[in-house]
């Protein structure tokens, strides 16, 4: 059992909306690890690779997003996701 955790404040103007969600789930899918997303440190957790579930959180601006990941590339996945949210979902330079 090796679940890594991370959290990040989302400042994106309209929250976890269509464009940000597309980017987030795409990025999550690039990793093998199982990755969950929640709006509180204790969940409830949803699959960060599912845009249907991610959009359903309807997370507004200034929410803190919690991630937990389990798998070989869990650490890299968390770092990448935090960077994405922290960087306001801009395209990677």
């Amino acid at each position, binding site marked *: 059992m090796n679940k890594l955790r991370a959290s990040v404040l989302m400042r994106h*103007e*309209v*929250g976890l*909306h*269509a*464009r940000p*969600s*597309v980017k987030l*789930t*795409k990025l999550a899918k690039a990793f093998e690890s199982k990755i969950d997303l929640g709006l509180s440190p204790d969940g409830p957790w949803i*699959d960060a*690779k*599912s*845009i*249907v*579930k991610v*959009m*359903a959180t*309807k997370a*507004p601006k200034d929410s803190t997003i919690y991630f937990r990941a389990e798998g070989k590339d869990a650490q890299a996945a968390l770092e990448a996701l935090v960077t994405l949210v922290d960087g306001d979902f801009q395209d990677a330079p």
Partner: protein
Amino acid sequence: MHHKTHRPARRIEGKAASPGVARGPLLRLLAAKSERRERRSAAAEQQALAGALEASRLDLTALAEKVADEDAEAILAFQIALLEDENLAAPAFARIADGEVADRAWVGAIDAEIATYDQAEDSYFRARASDLRDLRDRVLRRLAGEVDQAVLPGVIVAAEDMPPSVFLATDWRDGGLVLHRGSPASHVAILARSRGVPMLVGVDIDHLESGTDAVLDGDAGALFVDPDPELKADYDRRLAEQTRLRLEAASFSGPVTTASGERVQLMINVTGLAELKEIDPANVDGIGLMRTEFLFHGRDKLPGEEEQYRIYGKMAEWAAGKPVTIRTLDAGGDKPIAGLTESGDLNPFLGVRGVRLSLRRLDVFRLQLRALARAAVAGNLKVMIPMVTVPEELERCRELFAEIVDELHGEGIDAKSPPLGMMVEVPAAALAIEDFNADFFSIGSNDLIQYVAAASRDEPQLAELARPSRAVFRLIGRVVEHAGRSGREASLCGDLAGEPAQVASLLDQGLRIFSVAPGALGPVRAAIARYSGKAE
């Protein structure tokens, strides 16, 4: 298959939404619902749904590759991502396993999802419901065995309604559009006019069949199905004339003058950067109207200061010194914007719209003014305010601009106050035009006509009233005359300016600056060139 040669031509009335003529086979875009599926085994139904989902995903992927528009691209990317997520259809597969037919299962599953968006508190999330509906219908069409209706150039598309993103993704060369819903003021209609695509709305499309020969007359507001040879020949002549005018429009150059040699300025109305790619700035006298509400429409979030600054700057760069007239946000009325305009306005055209809304939403308005003040440094930018009714509104905007320029200077950012003009579209403003301290005037004929006649341009029964009347021309003459006397410019940027048949009457009123949809440049230019002075 069809015995169309024996059928008499049918004339179907509609409302003209974009002028011009198109001739070609009809392509009926089906709003998927109609006939019940026959029930087969659960496995067969699940396979049918899986196939329809995959086919839809491929359709959208192909579409996304063709689209150049950033917003359209984002809409498609979202829909593709939804389709790639098995959670979307999982409830539908479960319903099939419980004995439901594939299409009903899919609708039931996705409608439940749509409902959660419809009920969202946040208007941005609510607006996404339309994406899901779009997706629902696409998959349904596939389930019904409809191949995705690729629109080839030269066809007349008939549909219930069409979202702007679909319009933008379609190749409209030599084609036309016929809708059952929508209005001439809808976004799709404005896009159609700007791209020279003939279009009708309010057409009964129920009995139209794909493949049937048809003629669309976007001037008369009629669709002819199975035209007889005589009618065809007639419209072939008009098509040839239209093609000639368009070629002329594409190849014309040099200043626009009347037959008597008087110079007239001919500018364009635009909604964004995409349209400018196809126009040589050497052939126009500038941008007479940039409708900024399109930057705000149908997207995840309102555009920020930087994005607006970049777009206004690029327009000024395109115009290379010629004037670029940017209208501040004209939301409300028939152009609602999620998260911005007030819902539940009892009478939106007489409600909180244009400058009335901007002055109540200073957070949004100030951002736009900041972007404009910054872009004004580098280009020949002019700013005009929509729906001004009393002088105080314009004064308030002027003060705001001055404040914002100071604020920007305080932040060490280059900025200046551009010339500030007003749209003249409210009769009260036209009648007391002397009271307004505007740097220039631009007559918005669409609203002016409907406010003068107290007749909505969207009410088909009142089409005869919502026309440019003598009363309207008098008001136009008044404004133009006042502008001339006080050494200011007056232009006309409504659809009236783009109607060749009205050009002479407008020139008679003294109007010398026309701003028209790019598609109307050729015909209007030709009409101006025919004008040899006021008929006595």
